[in-house]
């Protein structure tokens, strides 16, 4: 049994790489769809499983498997954290859970609105879980539903059949953390003021000291500003106080020296802030800012060319109102 093999592994943790064994689930045999990319789930801490996203742009060759998604197993129940880009990715995740435990899937936590995190949720309808996210997640998803589903179809085509939007049935307010009890395991859900998006949520597992930050932290991959640059910098200040042992970013490897990753992210966002402020002060334009700001960060991030101009644009329209 995979389960037993896993347990055995847990005692021999030295490095992340060793911890990473794990469940090379050949889940894809029955669907045929995912054959090219067997999904690899790693147990990053006892009972916390992660399927690392591929550090690429959303595309047909990676089937949209770009975000870190996973689940946490307690004594009585399972909580899913993010669901992938499509119904199919959600099903893959669900099968991975069932390889490991038969406990009920009681919660599906959606860390924020982005399609690579939310569009697999329908795969869990059969479990009748509580879908929970930031209090503003519902509104944000409704506003974007058509656009997200259209773009998914455009990139992945008919292989995403069955994908639909699932709206959260419970919301977490900023400043009012919510606890989920999984049986000898409590998860603390915290909602943030507008940062990466206006609906960011983190999950903290006290047992292992694991803080699942999702897209509040990008590691190696360029951060995407889809909420507020100033807000995000404020949230980074706050997160810097945390004493979590390890952090799960939304994209990129799990980090134990995570404050360094947080500092990298801050450095990039600070470069946006000071560069754009300078141009706004001289009545400059977005186009000038795209050309001039933050170019020194180019070699520090994956997918810089794909997202940097967008970050400048989004931040510019925020900062010109300061």
């Amino acid at each position: 049994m995979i389960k037993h093999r896993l347990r055995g592994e847990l005692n021999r943790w030295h490095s992340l790489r060793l911890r990473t064994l794990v469940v090379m689930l050949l889940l894809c045999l029955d669907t045929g769809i995912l054959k090219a990319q067997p999904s690899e789930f790693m147990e990053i801490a006892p009972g916390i499983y992660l399927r690392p996203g591929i550090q690429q742009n959303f595309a047909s060759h990676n089937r949209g498997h770009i975000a870190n998604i996973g689940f946490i197993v307690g004594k009585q129940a399972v909580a899913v954290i993010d669901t992938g880009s499509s119904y199919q990715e959600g099903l893959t995740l669900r099968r991975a859970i069932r390889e490991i435990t038969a406990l009920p899937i009681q919660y599906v936590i959606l860390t924020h609105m982005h399609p690579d995190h939310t569009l697999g949720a329908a795969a869990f309808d059969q479990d009748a879980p509580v879908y929970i996210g930031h209090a503003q997640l519902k509104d944000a998803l409704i506003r974007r539903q058509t656009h997200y589903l259209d773009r998914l179809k455009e990139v992945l085509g008919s292989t995403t059949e069955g994908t639909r939007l699932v709206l959260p049935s419970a919301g977490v307010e900023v400043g009012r953390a919510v606890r989920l009890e999984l049986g000898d395991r409590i998860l603390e859900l915290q909602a943030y003021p507008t940062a990466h998006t206006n609906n960011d949520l983190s999950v903290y597992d006290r047992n292992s000291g694991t803080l699942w930050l999702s897209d509040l932290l990008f590691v190696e991959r360029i951060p995407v500003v889809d909420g507020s640059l100033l807000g995000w910098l404020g949230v980074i200040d706050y997160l810097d106080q945390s004493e979590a042992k390890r952090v799960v970013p939304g994209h990129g490897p799990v980090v134990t020296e995570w404050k360094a990753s947080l500092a990298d992210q801050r450095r990039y966002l600070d470069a946006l802030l000071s560069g754009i402020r300078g141009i706004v002060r001289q009545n400059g334009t977005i186009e000038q800012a795209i050309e001039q700001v933050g170019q020194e960060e180019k070699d520090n991030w994956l997918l810089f060319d794909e997202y940097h101009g967008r970050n400048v644009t989004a931040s510019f329209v925020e900062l010109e109102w300061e």
Partner: protein
Amino acid sequence: MTTVSNLKHNKVVRKIVQISYLTFLFGSLMITTLSAAETDGRWHEIKTSLFGDRAIKDGEDVIGLETPYRALDAAVVPISIESKITQNQNNYIKSLYLVIDNNPSPIAAVFHFPGKHNWQSLSTRVRVNAYTDLRVIAEINDGNIYMVNNYVKASGGCSAPSLKDPAAAAAHLGKIKLKLPKASNLGDLLSTQLLIKHPNSSGLQFDQISRQYIPANFIRSIQVTFNDEVVFTADSDISISEDPSIHFGFSPEEEGILKVEVKDSTGRTFNHSVDLPNQEKG
């Protein structure tokens, strides 16, 4: 001055703007991938409704249009229009139509100029929902119509043409800024930026999934005057980005007051003014 034909014209445009908006609200006209034939069909429809069977000439010598090759942020796509003719009272751009074929509401804005002020460039920011042709059509005061168009690729991934933070947008609604060059002399062509804090949002239909209705809230018209004479007016719609920005140029020949009046779809009016050539008051 508004002429009779101008009035009639405005009415027609407003009607189209309304129709396309209603289609967005209640229909399912969110087309992302359109075949070439469909796209042409869409433009044909828009063209007929705006200009009937009047001839539209190649505008390469009349207007320049700069758009990004790819929309980086679907909610904020900067576009820049240049007048290639030197405008004076005998020869000027009377109306300027900004059309985004494949947006739910394709007519983003129609600008009207009285021909009193020369201008060289006009820029704004639009939402781009899908791969689309983006067109600028200039109607000259002699009745000739010219068009230029660029193809814009949609942005990738998680970029959506939606409000980023509705709560923040509501909190600052109606603030207006006029940004002018720090120092200027009478007669200089002033590059001026008008910024309006407004969600400019389509609202949302009541639908099966959300069981939710968010009322439309967008800017319908903008009027800029200098000493009570029109610099330009614009009929606008939801394809203009949140917190609309318009860069325009004009040359004040005397001291005076530059005024902005903005009306939105919920019936609100917002005003702002600055004294020229002095700097903006606090």
